[in-house]
């Protein structure tokens, strides 16, 4: 811990403000072949609404693990995950899936667009099984917001890396989430393209959405409101 704030105090502080998502004394252990790896060793973290948080740290320090917990893709070994004040640690698969859909958007390093679908269709994928809802208009609107108005009917292999990532960002926003999680969003992009993506994130935050980005990229920290560094599964520095 960083000395001045006790974990409890951090938590209290976070609760007092408008907290989008929070981890409270979270640990995560992986068991592989009898060996237990402690990927997260007691993490307290609160992310405010509209905040752009970047998480840095050496490889293997537990960044992706933390993001998976924040994204309700995985469950902590101990501790609590709180989404907009609600304890979501113990939810079953159905409720987790619903919570993800309602509140969280994902942006991946490898974009993960479906190769058979066009840009608009990719953006509407999260709404694919919603009856009586056609999200196409909103998808087109989001694509033009990220500057891809003229690329709506292109398939991923007809798009550049930066364009693909912008499609992915539009997809993450289709359900009007409170939180967007990004694992190495600029990892596969050159400096300039990375910058446009980060500007995109900044604008999202200005609309009241929290963005949490895991990165090795120094550039990301320049755009972020706050940066935390993770070392060996512990938050080491809050910048």
């Amino acid at each position: 811990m960083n000395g001045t704030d006790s974990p409890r105090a951090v938590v209290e502080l976070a609760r007092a403000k408008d907290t989008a998502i929070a981890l409270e004394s979270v640990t995560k252990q992986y068991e592989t072949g009898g060996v237990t790896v402690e990927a997260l060793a007691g993490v307290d973290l609160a992310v405010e609404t509209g905040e752009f948080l970047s998480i840095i740290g050496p490889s293997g320090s537990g960044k992706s693990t933390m993001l998976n917990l924040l994204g309700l893709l995985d469950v902590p070994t101990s501790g609590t995950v709180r989404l907009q004040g609600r304890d979501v640690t113990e939810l079953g698969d159905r409720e987790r899936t619903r919570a993800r859909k309602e509140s969280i958007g994902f942006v991946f390093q490898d974009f993960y667009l479906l190769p058979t679908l066009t840009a608009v269709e990719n953006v509407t994928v999260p709404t694919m099984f919603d009856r009586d809802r056609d999200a196409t208009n909103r998808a087109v609107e989001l694509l033009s917001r990220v500057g891809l108005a003229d690329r709506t009917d292109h398939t991923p292999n007809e798009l550049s890396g930066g364009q693909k990532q912008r499609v992915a960002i539009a997809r993450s926003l289709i359900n009007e989430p409170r939180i967007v999680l990004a694992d190495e969003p600029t990892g596969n992009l050159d400096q300039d393209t990375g910058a446009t993506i980060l500007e995109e994130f900044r604008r999202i935050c200005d609309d009241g959405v929290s963005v949490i980005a895991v990165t090795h990229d120094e550039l990301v920290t320049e755009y972020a409101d706050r940066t935390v560094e993770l070392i060996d599964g512990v938050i080491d520095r809050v910048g």
Partner: protein
Amino acid sequence: MATRNLGRNRVRTALAALGVLIGVFAIASLGIFGNVLALSAEAELGGIGDQVIVTPNQDAGSNALTVRDVDAIARATGSDGTAVALRSDNGLITASGGQTFGQVYATETPGVLFTAAAGTIPDRHRQGAIVGAEIADELSLEVGSAIEVAGARYRVIAVLESEEMISPVSPNNAVVLPESAIGGRTYDQVVVQADSGAAATAIADRVRAQLNAREERVSVFELSSLLETINEFFSLLNRFLLGIAGISLVVAGVSIFNVMLMSTNERKQEIGVLRAVGIHKADVLRVLLAEAALLGVVGGFFGAILAGVAAIGLVFVSPIGFDVVFVASNGLYLLGAFVFGVFICLISGAYPAYKAATLRPVDALRG
């Protein structure tokens, strides 16, 4: 969605669908083939199943059936059928159109055994000749023509229908005369026309019991039980053919299994993304099952079409008639094979789909 996913690896998809196609084709066509065989055998043999032929047992030294024998047979027949006593001979049949050798039957009640195509067969046959289709054709006979059989002249009162079925008393190459036309007091055979195959069997048993009680005086020939055995054989053959065809569809199922396993494995990360962005397990499962079902529907549809075409082709390359091909039971084989094909696809698609859909999103994303 399912269509496009399958479109991604066209060759593999096509091969899997081809497997189903072949499987469904095999089941449907072999099923129909066996069924057609059974049906046409039944059509050809059906008639003799209802008849019992009683002839004197020459081994026991009797050459003819007496009036008493005929009466005994009639009693044994009872109300299960009608016994017709026949005298038979071979003879030269002459008409203005030429002459030919033919079978000559003499009986009082030919109407029980034969059906007229032209003219009428009287209840009691007292005068005139009834001629079979082939003879009528050969000698250009029609109702009213004059013929001469064994020196006696007759007027043709009826021409018989051409008989397709195999029958112990085939009328095609025969002339049927009144009983008195062939002299004597005995008969050469009694044909019992029974109401059904089962009745024929019962009658045959009673005739044996009553006439052969002390010595084997008559030979009783009836085919209904043989026919049953033939039917059993055909249904066995059919099941055997279907079994072979079923194996080919199971092989197709294994290839579907493989295709689905490979394609879900390849798409693990995509499935992970779907799960991450809030798509439920059940929906992922549904998409993947839809893909498997689509393979089955497409492969099965064309397999069934092909089998239908093959069945129709059978009519042209073999002496099998349309009447035994266009029957409801054959349609059932087509439908059944199709349904079975789709079912196999769903079954073999189920495990890979279930496995992929229930993978934890984190694990799926890691690839």
